[in-house]
């Protein structure tokens, strides 16, 4: 075992540092001025090979060979310099890889550059009010226009992140109502700026509302050209399963958890409970999980760098993170005491907020619940670990539905 990145990576780190020292000097720039500066900086960073490494040059990327160690060094150094990374969001994380794998040249030309430059913001159109964990049951309908050139979309999508900012959506629509459920779905891109689309923010249990929360979308004869369909008609389910592994292994989520744990220790100090033996025991107990998560992320990263399969543990990380978040929330709730009687300003959100005391932990206490639901609910994670990780037989209902016949 060796947790250093090696001499080659450290030399590369020096290059990144020199680049950042020269290229990232935002100074006192604000608002539009800063925005322009960031845009120009990202272009330079792409030029240097540091951002959008898996995206071909012709679409505005850096087109670099896969190298998880370099990618990690870049993340670390950009974070240290507080320099902006890729624009992020669903567009960069999902639309771009999907188009690179399954899209047409026309779609790539049309969407990738504008997505990575932040001009196009993508909402995810998967969940529906009646389709949560059973995603393949989507009912939003897609029908061909009489002339066969456009898809006409009717239905409802829900839980769209960045919904109020989204310019476009990638969505699953049912186009073959008579086909078996997984074979009747088409993966479609759609422009959200049209009369047939209505969006509405969802007020969350945290109180969060307005521009930064999730949205629900209503489609009433909304249209999209047939050329914006990704993959074969009826094969959208397979397209949505496209998972690209471009430098995905990161130690980032472990750092986030570690930071949160340190803040929990600070909270215990702030409220004068750090000397309480029960609190100390509980902190150390939770830290056992936090460190296990951290070192397992090292393990996954190491396997990824070596091109080896880490096995079943990779399937466990999301649920592990979620469960640790719950443990931290419970201890935080004990520690905040009466501070919890006052809801923090700007609860849960990214909006303006004033000075905040221990009550700010209400955000984490409520927010940690979101992890049990978003991106694959915890019980679905347990199924995945049990079935794909441990090789246990599938639930009978699911097996019958998948056409497995009598088990």
């Amino acid at each position, binding site marked *: 075992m060796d947790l250093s990145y090696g001499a080659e990576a450290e030399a590369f780190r020096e290059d990144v540092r020199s680049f950042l020292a020269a290229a990232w000097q935002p100074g006192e720039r604000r608002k539009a001025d800063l925005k322009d500066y960031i845009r120009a900086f990202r272009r330079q960073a792409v030029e240097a090979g540091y951002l959008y490494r898996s995206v071909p040059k012709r679409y505005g990327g850096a087109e670099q060979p896969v190298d998880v160690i370099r990618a990690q060094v870049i993340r670390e150094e950009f974070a240290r310099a507080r320099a902006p990374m890729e624009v992020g969001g669903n567009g960069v994380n999902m639309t771009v890889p999907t188009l690179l794998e399954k899209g047409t040249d026309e779609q790539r030309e049309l969407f990738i550059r504008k997505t990575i430059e932040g001009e196009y913001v993508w909402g995810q159109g998967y969940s529906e009010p009646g389709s949560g964990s059973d995603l393949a049951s989507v009912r939003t309908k897609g029908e061909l226009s009489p002339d066969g050139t456009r898809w006409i979309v009717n239905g409802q999508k829900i839980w769209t992140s960045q919904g109020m900012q989204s310019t476009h959506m990638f969505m699953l629509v049912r186009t073959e109502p008579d086909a078996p459920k997984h074979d009747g779905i088409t993966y479609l891109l759609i422009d959200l700026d049209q009369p047939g689309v209505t969006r509405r923010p969802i007020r969350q249990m945290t109180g969060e509302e307005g521009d930064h929360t999730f949205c629900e979308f209503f489609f009433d004869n909304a249209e999209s050209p047939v050329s914006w369909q990704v993959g074969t008609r009826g094969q959208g389910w397979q397209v949505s399963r496209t998972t690209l592994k471009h430098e995905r292994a990161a130690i980032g989520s472990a750092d986030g958890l570690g930071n949160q744990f340190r803040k929990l*220790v600070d909270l215990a100090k702030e409220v004068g409970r750090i000397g309480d033996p029960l609190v100390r025991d509980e902190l150390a107990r939770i830290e056992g999980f936090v460190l296990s998560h951290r070192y397992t992320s090292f393990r996954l990263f190491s396997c990824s760098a070596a091109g080896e399969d880490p096995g079943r543990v990779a399937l466990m990380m999301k649920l592990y993170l979620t469960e640790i978040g719950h443990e931290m929330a419970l201890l935080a709730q004990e520690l905040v005491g009466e501070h919890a009687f006052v809801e923090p300003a700007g609860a849960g959100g990214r909006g303006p907020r004033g000075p905040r005391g221990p009550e700010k932990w209400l955000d984490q206490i409520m927010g940690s619940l979101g992890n049990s639901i978003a991106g694959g609910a915890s019980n679905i994670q347990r199924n995945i670990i049990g079935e794909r990780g441990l090789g246990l037989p599938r639930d009978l209902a699911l097996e019958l539905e998948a056409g497995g016949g009598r088990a």
Partner: protein
Amino acid sequence: MRFHLSEEQIAIQDAVRGTLADCWPMERLHKFADSGDDFDPDSWAALMGLGLGGILLPDSGMGLLDAALVSEVAGEMAAPGPLIAQLLAVAAVARSGSEAARAHLDGLVAGTTIAALALGDSQFVQSARAAQVLLVGDRDGGIALVEAGEGVTIEPVQPTDRSRPVSRVSFAGAIRHELFSAGDPLAASLCDAALVLIAADALGGALHCTDISVAYAKEREQFGQPSGRFQALKHQLAHMALDAEPARALVWYAAYAWDAGLPDAARAAAMAKAHLCDVYVRSTRAAVAAHGGIGYTWEYGLNYWFRRAVLNRAWLGSPAEHRVRAAVMAGW
């Protein structure tokens, strides 16, 4: 950057696993458990024949991580002792300046001289009746090698852990070679290594409990279906795996930190001991529950792992005691 096992390390584990599968099947464990013995010469000879005794020699090219990988498999197979004692006795004697103690080194490495571990203030020692030397002391008071025989009183007890039976041991005027005096950092470091090896044994045991529960859920049928198809049990099994598998890296890190002399090595050892012994106890309880009636029988043998978890948890300090230490070391 490397933080996963090498092919060589996996090969060591496979060799130990294969050896124990041959010489330590369940029927052998059953016999041993009822024999009243505290040492099994055949499996000991087989393990020592693999050269495990020398892993913690300073110039072996291996380290605590490799020792922990062996300890993990011993835990997985509920192997009899005194493996952890032997590994540590070699580490201690080889790093000490005591000529009298070093006279035992070759025998310890070969396994012909058997060592028992009497660290801490516990009066209970595994394989005490078989041992020729005992590693005695603690992290603050220094560590010595004591010759078995005159001055060492050994009183057999009915041991809870049947795979590693303990006796009650007391010392009065025994022959004693000081290895590390009070305040020598090597004494504390050796105690840290012991914690890591116990954590590794717990890891192996917890993973084994998970694996046999999963295997049983695939073959046991109820309502005409393998019981593992039912979501309630599937989710319990998923949680057993979730508890044990990510904790593997905690053991790796603690061993790596000890080998590399990192500043957080002592704290990492305490965290690993506390966490893995908790995990092990949870895993054995969950395994009995997941098996149902068969898991509650003596014959099935799950009880040996359960009993091992009882011993590991209390051995050289409970999880709560190590969390107290970890809190102090963190400056809380």
